[in-house]
């Protein structure tokens, strides 16, 4: 079977943040923005929909959410409908399955939309919800939710490679700088290294500004065969490669704490399938859930050597104008992390960059290749999409 090339022709987002809006309000905001971003296409034309939602059962007491979202968007899918769940990568999973369906010919017009409502009335309840992502009976029970697992990851990286808290803080400074220029971002204020180091301790060595915020949000994209893309927009974004890898789940079975081997393998597969090298990447929207994450992603993606991620940012390489523009959106650190929607916000960022539709202070001029990377759990699973301004 020959596969079709696939393009993203539209993106729509709800404002990310601590929102006075319900789960379904967020979906409607993103859906309206999505269909207003595309020509010659209405919700009734969509034949398939994938809904990225990590924990609606816990956060919003909703299950079976794909038909609910379709109903609110005015979509009546006749080919494929499903929810995708892969914790923090649920949104990219939605794009992947939509891509697959369009590529194989099963679908001609597919929506991938993600949503998460993370501010219930009681924040301790939200923390409880998040603590069942790692194996609840063997790691969650020991209170290994997101901050502790990334705290011990940072500790090992510091111990083995000499990475410093100041280097980690630089990631927060960079990403808050870019998010200050991004109107949809959750956090719009700049921070300094001193502010990061003096922010409250969450789980040492992680301070509050080493951590992404909890965020409400929703974002969606429309995928069509590349040959049809210009019918719907002057500026489509082409999906040209991908890589995904998961190794182990419970802490004992991780490949390593201080080196993200599944990321290295996913990156190799992404470069191979896109027929590019790491040096071709102009924009990397990566999963900076914690400052240490972005440092380890420079390494895992091959932008620098293993253990040298701290120096990479010290040298200014992940800034616009450096070796590769990493998180010009402001990343998860600045834009926020509505689990099921995060990857889709980042994919839309690359689309906006290709279109030149961003503030000049965070514009990556002439970018041709962008990657969207997401990780989940204890960083045992990594996913990469390779996006191109031109068809391949």
């Amino acid at each position, binding site marked *: 079977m020959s596969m079709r090339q696939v393009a993203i022709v539209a993106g729509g987002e709800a404002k990310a943040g601590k929102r006075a809006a319900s789960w379904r309000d967020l979906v409607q905001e993103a859906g309206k923005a999505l269909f207003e971003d595309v020509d010659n296409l209405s919700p009734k034309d969509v034949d398939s929909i994938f809904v990225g939602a990590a924990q609606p059962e816990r956060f919003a007491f909703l299950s079976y959410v794909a038909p609910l979202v379709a109903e609110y968007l005015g979509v009546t899918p006749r080919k494929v409908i499903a929810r995708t769940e892969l914790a923090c990568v649920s949104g990219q999973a939605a794009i992947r399955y939509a891509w697959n369906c369009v590529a194989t010919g099963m679908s001609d017009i597919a929506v991938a939309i993600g949503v998460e409502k993370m501010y219930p009335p009681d924040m*301790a*309840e939200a*923390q*409880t919800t*998040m*603590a069942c992502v790692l*194996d*609840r*009976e*063997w*790691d*969650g*029970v*020991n*209170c*290994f*939710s997101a*901050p*502790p697992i990334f*705290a*011990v*990851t940072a*500790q*090992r990286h510091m*111990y083995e490679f000499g990475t410093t808290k100041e280097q980690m803080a630089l990631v927060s400074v960079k990403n808050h700088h870019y998010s200050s220029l991004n109107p949809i971002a959750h956090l719009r204020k700049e921070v300094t290294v001193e502010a990061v180091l003096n922010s*409250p*301790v*969450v*789980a*040492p*060595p*992680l301070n*509050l500004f080493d951590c992404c915020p909890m965020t409400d949000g929703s974002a969606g994209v429309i995928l069509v065969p590349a040959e049809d893309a210009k019918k719907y927009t002057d500026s489509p974004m082409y999906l040209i490669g991908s890589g995904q890898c998961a190794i182990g789940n*419970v*802490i*004992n*079975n991780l490949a390593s*704490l201080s080196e993200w081997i599944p990321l290295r393998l996913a990156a190799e597969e992404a470069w191979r399938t896109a027929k590019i090298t790491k040096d071709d990447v102009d924009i990397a929207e990566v999963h900076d859930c914690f400052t240490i994450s972005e440092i380890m992603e420079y390494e895992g993606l091959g932008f620098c050597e293993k253990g040298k991620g701290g120096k990479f940012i010290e040298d200014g390489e992940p800034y616009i104008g450096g070796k590769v523009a990493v998180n010009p959106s402001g990343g998860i650190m600045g834009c926020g992390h509505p689990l099921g929607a995060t990857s889709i916000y980042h994919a839309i960022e690359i689309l906006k960059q290709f279109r030149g539709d961003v503030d000049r202070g965070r514009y990556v001029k002439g970018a041709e290749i962008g990657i969207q990377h997401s990780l989940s759990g204890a960083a045992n699973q990594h996913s990469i999409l390779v996006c191109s301004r031109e068809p391949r």
Partner: protein
Amino acid sequence: MSKVKFEKIKRVEKIPLPSMLDFYPLQDEKHTRISQFFKNLKEGHLTTTKCKECGKLLWPPRIVCPECLSENLEWVDLGVEGELYAFTEIRLGAPLGFVEDVPFCVGIVKIGGLLISARIDEASYEDLKIGDKVRLKIVELPDGRVFYRFSKDMEQ
């Protein structure tokens, strides 16, 4: 004023902790086929399953070896003394049921060829360093279920 009837209704305001909001696993033979793990723990032994066909040491304990699909597994004792591989202290953002304990230390302990997560008791963050020896400790919940932790206190 509307003529529609307005009535206050009742709702249960307090319920016991639902089992699916409880972090500790269900342990008896009615609920799990690895109840032996918890029986061993109650007697002071931290154990796991090892495949008798291919020799693979498995954590968490299983009923089937994922390497060779054998169900011929045996219980092996992991010992009582471990080494701290990594650790942190929970100071903000603890889940329900753990909020009252804040601050407390958690870590990854090297023991019996495994790297397992656990609470680290009788220590604060400043007392600990990578490579420290830690000793197995068993805790019992009010309903009789047990779980393992490690302690910085080696004199037991």
